[in-house]
């Protein structure tokens, strides 16, 4: 069975290679090849999953060692995989949602001349993401980590001729690179501390080293996680990343890649458990992001950006849960999976809407679409209900568990965390309802575009609707299934540990409170957008609204703090390099030239002055000789 693990990665990798180097010949069938290979991975994943299920609880970790990657003295990095319950969960999510989105893309990208390449990139992403979750050491994880970054870069910038897409892609990569510094420093710290960076030895002996080191490692891992998962302060790329094709947003920037940060924190649980300070920072980051993302989500009129804000916010939940330690790990992952279903569903729905609306993304130009695209409406609606935590849909279970765990943190901290998360839940309900109302209800508000083409909204083809339906089913049922006897938490327990904290507030109370704030949120949105037609042009709004539309000034801040000074620094250095560093060299040459020009004037052509020089020279010669003797 172990040998199948490598194939999980190999199948999409092969697809990427073939599709990207195969040339035009593959244009006609390339997308099906890509989809088939993604599905192959999924099938393999399912096979492995049942294999794992068939094993005893403690025996569910499989290893596959392929070859030694970088062996240098004490530094031994291997290409080796580790499949345990945690990675299995991710593998299923990645390959499952991934395959669906491949299928969806077949329809969505039908008219794009570069569809083959798009599938190549998607396959590349799958391979890298699987490598990330299957790696048995941090360096290989890092390889996958950067690999998904690359795929994300390529896919965000897929429509490269659009300058905004190209800029967004670059931004995503750069911001992620900042996070990657964290991961690389963390690995270096592990190497100097433990002499290795394989999961097994590092995590099992984490407790043996000082808390300071572990805190440092933890913070560095968190930095990496912030980059990949768009957490404050490295959140700014996610909104722009929506420039990419919608399936990409669904797969990478909602369901899978952005959750890699959560995976990293949960995977490194042993380190965080022994470094409470680092955990606190994780919690703070999660809490801040969940509110931040929600506020941004409330203000955006671009449907994808609103959903992106939501993604950020939901990952904030997961991050917060992961920061809580063993109480939260399992629920972080659980929310991650359910979120994978409903957020992917939402994005695919949004994509379907755009597909029917000539790629219009401004929700204020939608309205009343439920009549034109019923399947989309229903699936989107189910996912909507799931995310706002409508009772007994999947979001309800996973989010409530996290809120409960937050309260269980105890003391003032617990109350603060709980309240923040409830606030987040209310905001979630608000902005999701806003999206729902603006898109599917009310009057039609669309107008002819600049070329006079009026959109003709229509339902999408089956290749697109089928994945949406499947995801909708997941959105509805997953939470319930997972929560049955805490099956999901127990499944993960060998990896993440499981603890039940004592909450000052009971489970039921939390659920009740969560449902209550949800109703408040929905109500508020209804009052604002449901009762009267929404204006096509966004009203000016308050300062907060304007700030929120500008992503709470994140870009302004980055510009002022980094980009502008950086530009000046660079320009200054170019000047310095030219004038000073090079100037010294050129100046030296010029100085010799000048000296030469001066010295040669001594050679004035008059024989008598030459004689003077000889006479003087003789005098000096004699004087020096005599002086040397005298001294």
């Amino acid at each position, binding site marked *: 069975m172990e040998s199948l693990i490598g194939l999980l990665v190999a199948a999409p990798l092969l697809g990427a290679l073939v599709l990207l180097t195969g040339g035009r010949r593959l244009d006609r069938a390339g997308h099906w090849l890509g989809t088939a290979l993604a599905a192959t991975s999924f099938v393999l994943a399912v096979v492995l999953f049942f294999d794992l299920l068939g094993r005893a609880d403690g025996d569910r970790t499989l290893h596959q060692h392929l070859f030694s990657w970088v062996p240098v003295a004490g530094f031994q990095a291997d290409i080796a995989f580790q499949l345990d319950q945690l990675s299995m969960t991710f593998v299923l999510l990645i390959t499952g949602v991934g395959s669906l989105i491949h299928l969806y893309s077949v329809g969505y990208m039908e008219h794009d001349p570069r569809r083959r390449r798009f599938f190549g990139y998607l396959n590349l992403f799958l391979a890298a993401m699987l490598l990330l979750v299957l790696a048995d050491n941090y360096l290989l994880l890092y390889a996958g980590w950067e690999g998904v970054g690359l795929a994300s870069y390529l896919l965000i910038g897929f429509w490269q001729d659009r300058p905004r897409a190209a800029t967004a892609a670059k931004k995503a990569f750069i911001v992620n690179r900042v996070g990657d510094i964290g991961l690389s420093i963390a690995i270096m710290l592990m190497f100097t501390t433990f002499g290795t960076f394989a999961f097994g030895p590092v995590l099992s002996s984490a407790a043996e080293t000082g808390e300071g080191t572990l805190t440092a490692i933890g913070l560095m891992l968190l930095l990496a996680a912030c980059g990949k998962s768009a957490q404050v302060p490295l959140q700014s790329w996610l909104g722009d990343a929506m420039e990419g094709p919608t399936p990409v947003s669904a797969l990478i920037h909602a369901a899978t890649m952005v959750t890699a940060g959560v995976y990293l924190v949960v995977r490194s649980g042993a380190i965080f458990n022994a470094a409470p300070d680092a955990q606190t920072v994780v919690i703070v980051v999660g809490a801040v992001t969940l509110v931040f993302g929600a506020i941004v989500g409330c203000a955006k009129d671009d449907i994808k950006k609103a959903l992106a804000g939501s993604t950020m916010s939901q990952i904030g939940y997961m991050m917060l849960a992961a920061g809580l330690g063993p109480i939260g790990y399992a629920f972080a992952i659980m929310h991650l999976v359910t979120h994978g279903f409903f957020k992917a569903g939402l994005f695919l729905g949004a994509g379907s809407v755009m597909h029917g609306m000539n790629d219009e993304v401004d929700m204020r130009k939608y309205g009343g679409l439920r009549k034109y695209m019923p399947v989309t409406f229903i699936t989107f609606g189910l996912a909507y209900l799931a995310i706002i935590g409508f009772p007994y849909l999947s979001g309800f279970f996973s989010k409530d568990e996290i809120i409960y765990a937050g309260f269980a943190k105890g003391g003032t901290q617990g109350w603060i965390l709980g309240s923040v998360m409830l606030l987040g839940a209310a905001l979630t309900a608000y902005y999701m309802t806003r999206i729902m109302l603006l898109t599917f209800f009310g009057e039609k508000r669309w107008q002819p575009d600049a070329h006079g083409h009026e959109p003709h909204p229509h339902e999408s083809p089956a290749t697109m609707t089928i994945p949406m339906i499947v995801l909708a089913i997941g959105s509805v049922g997953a939470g319930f299934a997972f929560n049955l006897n805490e099956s999901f938490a127990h499944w993960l327990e060998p990896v993440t540990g499981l603890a039940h904290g004592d909450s000052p507030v009971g489970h039921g109370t939390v659920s009740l409170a969560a449902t209550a704030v949800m109703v408040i949120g929905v109500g508020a949105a209804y009052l604002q957008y449901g009762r009267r037609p929404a204006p096509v042009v966004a009203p000016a709004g308050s300062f907060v609204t304007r700030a929120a539309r500008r992503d709470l000034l994140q870009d302004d801040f980055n510009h002022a703090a980094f980009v502008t000074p950086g530009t000046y620094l660079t320009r200054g250095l170019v000047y310095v390099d030219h004038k000073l560093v090079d100037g010294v060299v050129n100046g030296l040459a010029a100085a*010799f030239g000048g000296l*030469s020009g001066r010295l040669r004037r001594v*050679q004035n052509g008059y024989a008598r002055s*030459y004689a003077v020089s*000889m006479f003087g020279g003789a005098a000096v*010669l004699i004087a*020096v*000789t*005599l002086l040397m*003797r005298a001294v």
Partner: protein
Amino acid sequence: MNDLQAPSIEWLALLPSLIVFGVAVIGVLIEAFAPRAARYGTQVVLTTLGFAGAFAAVVALAAGGHATTEAQIAGMGSLAVDGPALFLQGVILLVGLLSVFLFAERRLEPARHGTRVDSFAAQPAAVPGGEAEQEAVKAGHTTTEIFPLLLFAVGGMLIFPAANDLLVLFIALEVLSLPLYLLCALARRKRLLSQEAAVKYFLLGAFASAFLLFGIALLYGYAGTVTYAGIADVISGAPAAIDPGLASTMGNDALLLIGGALVVMGLLFKVGAVPFHMWTPDVYQGAPTPVTGFMAAATKVAAFGALLRLLYVALDGTRWDWEPVLWGVAIASMVAGAVIAITQTDVKRLLAYSSIAHAGFILAGVVAVSEDGVSSVLFYLAAYSFVTLGAFAVVTLVRDAGGEATHLSKWAGLGRRSPLLAGVFALFLLAFAGIPLTSGFAGKFAVFRAAADAGAMGLVITGVAASAVAAFFYVRVIVLMFFSEPKADGPSVVIPSPLTMSVVGLAAAVTLVLGIAPQYFLDLAGQAGVFVLR
């Protein structure tokens, strides 16, 4: 009545210079008696044979051990036949031999009235541009006296490094200088410059000889003898016999030091070291290029030989006095030569300043005062003289309507028109710059190594810095030749006769061989590194 004590002269040991002088005299006789038409051919063949014969004699002497175990002082103590002398004589003779080819080259100038002519004035005594000159040109006269003059100069140069007493030193200096003064004045083109060069060279040369002579007088006053060995004995405080006169002067170090300084100055003038260098650029520029090539190569060899012998044999005891002075002169020469050359615009002047810098490098080896130092200087001189001769030979080939095109701007793009010639010239420049795999590098390394070994690291570092500066202008010429667009009215490269070709080719070959496989020649120089003292 006492029998006349005939002086014992070791004729065989002195054979090289005797052959040269003998041939020179025959050459003069030919000028006097042979018909004009026959002179050129006869002179060329005769001179060539003379040099070849003399060189063979040198080789025979060296093979006979005269360079090492059989080293001796011949001619009643006046001439040394030892390693350095023979080595340098060999080099001078080879340079002389190649110079004959350059002197004899007759394909560069356009033929006048059916006669092929060389680079020398038809009628040197005639006023430039005057009627007499035009008649001489029309008659196809050539100055075949250059060959005996060359022979006399070489004869003087052979004696110069072998001179073992001050009298011979002085005579040799004059014998080598006087013909050179004349040769300088004999250019066919740009005669005003040529004459000016001769006047300057002559006046300053005579001025320097006067200093040298006065120095000789003072040294004689100090030691009561003019032989090197005698002087060395007095300096070391152990003369053969002390008479009252000697007793009163030998304590007078001022005589010794001033005298020594003046003699050294006279030699430094010939070498072209700062601050006695100022004649070099003007004379190199004005003299006919074959003469410049010969002079630059051979005079430097001879003068350094004389300087080495004087310092190592006669004045060895005052080493601590002259070492610092020569340090200063070496540094000044390296720096001034390299720096001033940067802004030169005439190839010949450029090479002149480069020769000044090289005089500084060689002095670094002289200052080392060791056997290594001597042999490194010998090797350097051998390497340098061929590169110099080759470089000037190339200069003779680049011509436009006004004769040789020596202004650098005219050399632009030469590499495109005649890549081979420009390549060879670049090779010579690189050798001057001391790039590895050329003879210049081996020489420089040898000299600097000797200096460093003697503790003169300061000289080495200055030398290295000066080399870096010097590289600048060598490279500038290469840039000009290869990377600049050729000008429409630029000079053309004349296809010379095999005479010049063989000079250039041989010089290039020597440059490469001494750079890549110098061991044999280092051995030669190494074996020749010991002066015979008495």
